[in-house]
């Protein structure tokens, strides 16, 4: 690999690090705030998690979670935080697509687009898999 290309890679890494750290920070804050609201409204005996029931529809889909979180429901906000967390690596892959376009490295633009497509499939259509 040539010198300028390596420097370019390193600058790409720096931006990526900031992106990852912010994603985790926003996600953890949302989960924490949601957790406080959730606990302040739950002085009931613990839910029995031994029996698997699955989450209700509104806590499974991107649209449903956004709707619940907008109402400031504790569980909805936690779920939104988790969604941000799942989206963080996806954003990193998306960023890599642009970085490789900037470098005119078309092989890796294609490779990264494939990874991105697989991730989007899992997030938006994978529930029925």
């Amino acid at each position, binding site marked *: 690999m040539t010198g300028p290309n390596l420097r370019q890679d390193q600058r790409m890494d720096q931006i990526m690090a900031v992106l990852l750290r912010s994603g985790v920070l926003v996600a953890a804050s949302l989960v924490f705030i949601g957790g406080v609201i959730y606990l302040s409204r739950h002085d009931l005996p613990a839910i029995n998690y031994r029996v698997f029931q699955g*989450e209700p529809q509104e806590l499974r889909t991107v649209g449903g979670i956004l709707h619940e979180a907008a109402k400031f429901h504790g569980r909805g906000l936690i779920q939104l935080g*988790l969604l941000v967390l799942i989206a963080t690596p996806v954003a990193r892959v998306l960023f890599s697509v642009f970085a490789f376009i900037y470098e005119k490295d078309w092989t890796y633009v294609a490779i990264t687009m494939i*990874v991105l497509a697989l991730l989007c499939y899992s997030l938006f259509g994978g529930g029925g898999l």
Partner: protein
Amino acid sequence: MNTLEFTLLVGLGSLLAGFLGSLTGLGGGVVIVPMLTLLFHVDIRYAIGAALVSVIATSSGAAAAYVKEGYSNVRVGMFLEIATTVGALVGAAVALHLHVSVIAIIFGLALIYSAFSSLREKSEHRSDVAPDRIATWLRMDSSYPTEKGMTQYHVRGVPLGFGLMFGAGVLSGLLGIGSGVVKVLAMDQAMKLPFKVSTTTSNFMLGVTAAASAGIYLGRGYIDPGIAMPVMLGVLGGSLIGARILAGAKVRSLRLVFAVVIGFLAVEMIYNGFAGKM
């Protein structure tokens, strides 16, 4: 036990798991599933959902630190992520059709392997291997910082590494773990990457692989906010504390203790799987 007590206890256990996982390099995710199922009697599907979320959190947090050091190989990582994400989708699809007891047994076996490999001595292999045709075409050869300055290395065994990565992805989707051990095996052994590069690149990939499975688990309703909240915050906090004190810590004996604990949990999970108690 009320909801507050449950949340605090799970959070505390996850904090400890994240702390030990970060110190020993095994990751906190591996003990989350046994802890939730054996100690808190949580259904394994909820446990896997929560563990996946914690894997993404620690991997993204640690990757942020690693990429700055310039160790990870972005091209190798991105190419292999095709294999791991396809594997993760397959694993998550297979998990739907397997009985929870079978998943528990496979989990136990994966735990035993992780415990063993964490104790094996790692030796740096020769970095002067010849260039490889596929790796050259994919422009994977790179360099990394050592005491002697930037050192060039060549990448080999791309097809074998790709195949192993598919397996790592399947395990991740099936069990909700990062499969970092298999990833390092593929890059270190099969592709002959320098050890530091394979470890950091593997960590950088964990988040993407886990995100592929997590999307499916979320859509299926396996990710419960009441469980995932204390697990995510606990593991993340624990791993951050662990990373802080890692520099001066004596890790060898700790790693042995952690491996024994994991081995014990593995046997219990396998036993419960066969006894149909999951």
